[in-house]
């Protein structure tokens, strides 16, 4: 004994039409929530992509004291050569450091004007042969103990710091997404409950003549599924729009130093659309399934 498809479609259709305003509200809420979900997924992917490179990059910055003598600098250079761990060593003298400083702080001319090349420390930028953090840090330790060395900094550490703050941001976006999903589940729940209430006589008769619970439930679940899927359809559009806007406003704008690092590719966009549909379908079906269950207790 199978549930007849035409029966489910007919019942679902009339339910949807009867509650048009609520149906509309439910679909819009689902769409907004799912768009947020898609956006948070894309931002998350973007963050992962942009920091993947930094995370695996084990670079060392050996900053010399401004007062370090040439001998001391040479000793560091020699130590690096002798260690056999350095793949590539670049020495930043005062002029080169100053150039970099000017680039980094080009927005703050006052700061640039107040600093002279001789105020800045010279440094070695070292790319170790090994990417093993332990080996790299033991190399760093041995260099730090040399005379004239002010500090050894690690690129990975810097990356981790940035990543930490962006991850926090990402977590907030996800949190908002979850709240919105919960809101749409409640709204679907409420819509279906109204639909169930409007049809309580029919449900009563169905139960009296011996309809099985899932038979009674099916049109309502289908209705929730329609809410979820239509919401997902709109949200997929929202995800594509978000993708376009992000690229246009951040990725393709050089001036957004941090934000233009957060980028994702087409496969991430496809994935976000798939997620939106799956979450939409589950949200819709589950919300309505629960709503109608309350009327089916025997």
């Amino acid at each position: 004994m199978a549930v007849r498809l035409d029966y489910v479609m007919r019942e679902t259709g009339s339910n949807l039409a009867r509650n048009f305003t609520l149906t509309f509200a439910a679909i819009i809420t689902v769409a907004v929530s799912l768009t947020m979900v898609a956006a948070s997924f894309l931002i998350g992917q973007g963050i992962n992509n942009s920091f993947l490179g930094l995370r695996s990059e084990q670079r060392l910055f050996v900053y010399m004291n401004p007062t370090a003598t040439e001998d001391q600098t040479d000793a560091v250079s020699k130590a690096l050569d002798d260690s056999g761990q350095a793949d590539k060593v670049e020495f930043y003298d005062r002029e080169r450091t100053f150039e970099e400083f000017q680039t980094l702080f080009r927005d703050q001319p006052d700061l640039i004007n107040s600093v002279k090349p001789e105020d800045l420390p010279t440094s070695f930028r070292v790319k170790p042969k090994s990417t093993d953090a332990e080996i790299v840090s033991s190399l760093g330790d041995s260099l730090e103990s040399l005379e004239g060395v002010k500090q050894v900094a690690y690129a990975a550490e810097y990356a981790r710091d940035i990543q930490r703050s962006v991850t926090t941001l990402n977590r907030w976006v996800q949190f908002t997404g979850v709240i919105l999903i919960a809101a749409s589940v409640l709204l679907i729940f409420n819509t279906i409950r109204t639909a169930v209430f409007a049809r309580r006589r029919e449900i009563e008769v169905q139960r009296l003549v011996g309809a099985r619970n899932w038979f009674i439930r099916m049109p309502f679940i289908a209705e929730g599924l329609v809410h979820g899927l239509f919401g997902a359809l709109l949200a997929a559009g929202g995800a594509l729009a978000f993708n376009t806007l992000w690229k246009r406003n951040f990725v393709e704008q050089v001036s957004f130093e941090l934000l233009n690092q957060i980028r994702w590719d087409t496969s991430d966009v496809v994935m976000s659309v798939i997620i939106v549909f799956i979450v939409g379908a589950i949200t819709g079906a589950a919300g309505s399934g629960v709503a109608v269950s309350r009327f089916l207790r025997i």
Partner: protein
Amino acid sequence: MIKLENVTKVYKGEHVALRDASVDIDKGEFVFLVGPSGSGKSTFIRLLNREERPEKGVIHVAGKDIGALPGHKVPDLRRNVGAVFQDFKLLPSKNVQENVAFALEAIGRPRSAIREAVPQILDLVGLSSKAKNMPDELSGGEQQRVSIARAFVNRPLILLADEPTGNLDPATSVGIMKLLDRINRTGTTVVMATHDRGIVDTMRRRVIELDNGRIVRDQVRGVYE
């Protein structure tokens, strides 16, 4: 067919609707439940299709202990126990034949079977000419006939009727009783709660009288009191 053993039903922990009731009803019997309002007649009926469960005692319907029936088996029980009510419980948005067909759709009957069964049952209750009418275009008696058609279209073993003539004038009630009698003659067990003295006294069937939840009389070919 129906067997109650020391059945007690208590509502909300205090109001005792049925006390220690024991009854045996055979297949094909026609039984009237009589007694004042609140004596437990409706509770008796509601226990038989598992709309309620007893606090104590055992209820057997068609050989099954229905108190122990798991929830997912209750629909099977109800397919064998038709029910008719004082307020008909018709769906106002569906016409006569749709109301009857709805009962068969709800239990997943194929369309061909529905097309065959509905005109037959409407013929039995004498409403063939009103198949396309909406419930609000029918008289009370006609609406009750639709409700009986819906309860019986699946040919249940038992038909429960809770004051089926409660809203009808005496002449119309006689028609309804003739219909229930006819259904009973097909071998269907009928249990009917009623206040209608005239009907009980005329039909002279088994009478079970309830008072304050107790069975105070159980009489073959009985009268109202």
